[in-house]
């Protein structure tokens, strides 16, 4: 537990000291929001919903896919001596989940500065964002690890990441459609259950598979 905590702290310290990563993310986000606001002028509820998740997808991928890169090379051998792979994976996943959640909130705040947000049920919306962040965090962390095995990892991560994320993204779009007052048929509880089941499945698998990818 202390190991996990100190790993997360280490990740944050590196991120904070190398300001370019965070500020790059922020700049990317602001640019995207600007482009959207300027080119759309008026955004209806359903369009807002889809745009929000597309923004989240791109920003999330940008934020997370590089996360494992620093763990390659020399530092990897150092970690292999020191810690259990499961500990490393859990700390990475937790860190990425929190990062994604904060990014999602930031996107929402930025969007609502410029455009009136159509969200009606704030608690549900927050829950949706949190649930999707968890799924994205688990998925993207594993994908970035897999992609890092190859030479062209950045391109590869995007190629193999998109299709895997799609079911989660579609569920997310459905769920937030509820929160802006559009009915998609069915109950939102069912979607939460599905996301939770997908999370459990993927988390279990990545915990089981990571040790195989970890050793060289």
């Amino acid at each position, binding site marked *: 537990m202390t190991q996990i905590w100190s790993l997360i702290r280490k990740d944050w310290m590196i991120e904070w000291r190398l300001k370019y990563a965070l500020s790059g993310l922020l700049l990317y986000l602001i640019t995207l929001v600007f482009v959207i606001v300027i080119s759309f002028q008026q955004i209806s509820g359903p369009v807002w919903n889809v745009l929000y998740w597309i923004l989240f997808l791109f920003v999330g991928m940008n934020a997370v896919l590089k996360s494992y890169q620093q763990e390659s090379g020399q530092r990897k051998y150092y970690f292999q001596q020191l810690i259990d792979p499961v500990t490393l994976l859990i700390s990475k996943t937790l860190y990425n989940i929190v990062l994604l959640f904060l990014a999602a909130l930031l996107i929402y705040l930025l969007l609502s500065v410029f455009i009136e947000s159509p969200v009606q049920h704030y608690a549900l919306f927050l829950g949706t964002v949190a649930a999707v962040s968890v799924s994205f965090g688990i998925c993207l962390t*594993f994908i970035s690890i*897999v*992609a890092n*095995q*190859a*030479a*062209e990892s950045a391109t*590869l991560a995007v*190629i*193999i990441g*998109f*299709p*895997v994320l*799609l*079911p989660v993204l*579609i*569920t997310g779009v*459905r769920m937030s459609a509820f929160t802006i007052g559009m009915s*998609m*048929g*069915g109950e939102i509880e*069912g*979607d939460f259950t*599905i996301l939770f*089941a*997908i999370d459990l*499945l*993927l988390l279990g*698998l*990545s915990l089981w*598979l990571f040790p*195989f*990818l970890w050793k*060289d």
Partner: protein
Amino acid sequence: MRLEWWKYLGIAILLYTLLFGMLVPLGPGIVEASPSQTNTGPGREFEVWGYNTRFSQFEKLNVVLKLDDNHCVLAREYQVISDYRLKAIFDLPALPEGARSSEFATLIIYPAGTGTAILPSAVSMKEGYGDSSGAWVPESQFAFDRNTSLHFPYRNILMESIRNTYFHVALWFAMMFILGASMVYSIRYLRSGLLDWDLKANAYAQVGILIGCLGITTGMIWAANTWGKAWSWDIKQTMAAVAMLIYLAYFVLRSSIEDQEKRARTGAAYNIFAFATLIPLLYVVPRLVDSLHPGSGGNPAMGGEDLDNTMRLVFYPAIIGWTLLGTWVAQLTFRYLKILYLMRSRNLTEQ
């Protein structure tokens, strides 16, 4: 000499599927009844077009309109124009109490050929004016015989294309089995570290994707004939395309890693992960969204009325047949991959 009986079995089953699936005729059906809207009252005339029907062969036809099990009405008189066409005159009694302002009635003709011809929601009935001498009778008064000979069910819109069930649907099932086998080989590779298992996983994934493409193609042909468009971004179509993308990414991943051992390990891990995401993709998400496919959006599911016992006789063997054929092709692919691997490693040692 290893026993290769299952290969012959697979081929025999597929031949049986082709022969039986293509040659067994459709049962009699009703293409259209006109007019499709009417008011209750005496002397309502309908013209009926049949498919695979033999109206003129029978002395007495029962032409029945049915609201529900307790409310049926027999035609007062009918006139057979040809084997495929007849006119019937009904004295429609007033709608039963508690009925909505308009009710859909099913048109049933028995005997119509090799069984009973049925057209669900054939006529929408509204309360009309004028007294009628007709009266509702329960369905139990008629002895509808549903299966008198070997035939596939007639379904409007689907018609003869119902035979595609043995190809499109069966191929999709076979793909899941083959991809499942690929995942099992990946697990075995991770457990043992023997490269053969990884080559097998790769071979099975390749064949699985080939079968998946065939399944999508047959589905698109079917959709072009029944839904009007080959690709209509139906949720299951979209998800199937995404599933193909996931496995294409698997091949891209494999080809981008040089080291044999590392490629095998990473590929195996991704393969297991990919198969796990395939399950929500193909079986959970489509159930949430409206779809043109059977089983969602109010359409009947497989195993409902669309798959009767005669079709089961072909459908289940077809799944086994396609799976066996896929396994055979996958074995050949595996041997090819293994020869490639051996040749490459020999070249390396010679240099």
